[in-house]
């Protein structure tokens, strides 16, 4: 079933048609929520909430757009609501790192070190850098997802990369 057909059925009150959208996008959504929240349990709750909000909001969905970028805005609102409503957790269990796929191009130690460095960033910074590098979004796509002007994307990206570069240098991280 195509997304648009599923959305049309959902608007008619068919909750089963929503299964198509959940099944198709839940993995991606959980991965993005983990990037923002840095915590799996909160991410699962936020994604669940986001899908429920999306179901209610489908009446306002513009059929000329793709579903996931539209849904992403709802998802990140839910994530930041969760982030605001909880105390920052200590990231003491990074052996079970969850943002980066393992094994990747790095050794397990390097991968954990990189993940730890990512976890030291703020939610907004981590969201931006992972969307750019792990999902390969362009500046325009980032501007749409984050609902900020393109110039802001560029400037934030510059700052967060600088921060990462300095941190990696402190850690003597050498991934050559």
């Amino acid at each position, binding site marked *: 079933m195509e997304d648009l057909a599923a959305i049309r059925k959902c608007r008619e009150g068919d909750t089963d048609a929503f299964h198509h959208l959940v099944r198709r996008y839940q993995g991606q959504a*959980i991965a993005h929520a983990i990037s923002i929240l840095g915590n799996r349990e909160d991410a699962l709750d936020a994604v*669940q909430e986001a899908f429920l909000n999306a179901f209610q909001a489908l009446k306002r969905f513009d059929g000329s757009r793709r579903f996931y970028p539209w849904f992403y805005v709802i998802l990140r609102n839910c994530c930041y609501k969760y982030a605001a409503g909880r105390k920052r957790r200590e990231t003491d269990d990074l052996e079970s790192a969850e943002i980066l796929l393992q094994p990747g191009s790095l050794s397990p130690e390097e991968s954990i070190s990189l993940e730890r460095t990512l976890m030291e960033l703020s939610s907004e910074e981590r969201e931006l850098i992972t969307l750019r590098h792990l999902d390969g979004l362009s500046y325009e796509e980032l501007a749409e997802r984050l609902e900020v002007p393109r110039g802001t994307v560029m400037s934030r990206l510059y700052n967060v990369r600088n921060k990462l570069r300095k941190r990696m240098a402190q850690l003597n991280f050498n991934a050559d």
Partner: protein
Amino acid sequence: MPEPICESVRRELMAGGDGQTPSMPPEVIDAHLASCAECRAESVEMERLNSLLDSQRRQVPTDDLWPLIRQRLDAEKSMARKRAVPYPFLLLAGSLAVYKLFELVPDRRIELFFKLVPVIIAISLFAFLRENPFKVNVHLETERE
């Protein structure tokens, strides 16, 4: 044109590396890089960082949230149905009061079926609301906003 400052050149280099068209002429950037060792070093480090990050892949969890989402959608649907019937129990009380008044009418033969009317009304209402009157709610749930 004023002499470009290091940060502007570094921003331009970053944008160029991300596939954006630089707003500064390339020869100006090259000239600055040739004369600024710090910008050259930073540009190399930045390239290394970008290629390291680009080589990473995102972990995609395989959790299935559908059963939980489905359950909550159903709960919301049933909640909406309840909201659609205003004051259902007031309706029940009204129907029973009417029945009682009717029952008080003198010189009227009351048959068995007529006596069952209040029970039928109550059962129908609970069936319509899909509510079990004998259910004990062990998880106290408040209506979500």
